[in-house]
């Protein structure tokens, strides 16, 4: 039973790594199934420059934005149903990436890149 547990843990770890490599960036949510209204946020950093929501295909409504750590306002927000929803915000402010699914269910992941 113990060996089975170890084997299962190894498989889960491998899948997690596969997911991270898949995104090729600092993935802060997913890949996972998203339902309408579900959201996620990255850590705060001054390094983040762009933020994207990578979806299984087009037709899934999603929002990406940056939130600063002073006023908590939204910046460079983009909402669409494209298979990848992108936003870029080239400023040195400390901010975090934020993404939200406006429709569901679909597979997707959110990532920030510096």
């Amino acid at each position: 039973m113990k060996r089975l547990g170890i084997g299962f843990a190894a498989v889960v770890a491998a899948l997690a790594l596969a997911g991270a490599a898949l995104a090729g960036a600092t993935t802060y949510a997913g890949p996972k199934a998203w339902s309408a209204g579900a959201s996620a946020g990255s850590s705060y950093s001054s390094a983040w420059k762009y933020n994207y929501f990578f979806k299984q295909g087009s037709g899934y409504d999603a929002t990406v934005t940056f939130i600063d750590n002073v006023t908590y306002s939204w910046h460079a927000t983009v909402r669409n149903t494209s298979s990848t929803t992108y936003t870029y915000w080239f400023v040195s402010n400390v901010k975090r990436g934020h993404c939200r699914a406006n429709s569901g269910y679909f597979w997707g992941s959110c990532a920030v890149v510096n």
Partner: protein
Amino acid sequence: MRGKRVIVASILVLAAALLASGVIAGQFRSADPEALHEALTSGEVVQVAEIAAADGLARRGVFVQETDIGQLCLWDAASASSLQRGGGCNAIDDPLGGSAVSASLAYDGGPAIETVRDARLIGLADEDVASVTVLMSDGSERVVRLKKAKLSAGDFFAFGYRFKKADLRRGIGPIAVIARGAGGGELARQPTGIG
């Protein structure tokens, strides 16, 4: 006997894991993020429509970028060379994502609509579309001007629209983009909104 059960269970777990990873990989086969990011650094950016200057805000452009990995991206940006941009990418053989219209809303400020400083809509519509309007939260509609766009992916209409500051200050924002045919019938409706 116990060892045999463990082996069988392990095989089942492995099979389930492989199936799950296959499903995940299959779902994301359309565009690898890293490859797309790389492709976006070299693909030509072409302007297809304009967002007029208004309310003290500078004009912007609507740009198409067709990449060598089969993605068509639509950008709202100040210029073709500006990397300060927002939008989205779809497969080049289906740039509207199976719809008659594909729109992208961009805004600065918020999430409360009254605090939004600038809100814009860009998009592409099928060449059979006769009109595109934006349904606002007060029930009114704003007509969006369409401009023909000849892309390697086909013939489309492109559009760019800037929402009036007066509307935003009063808490009136977009809730849907509607494409209609020549007879006035609705061809597609894409929900949108601020916040």
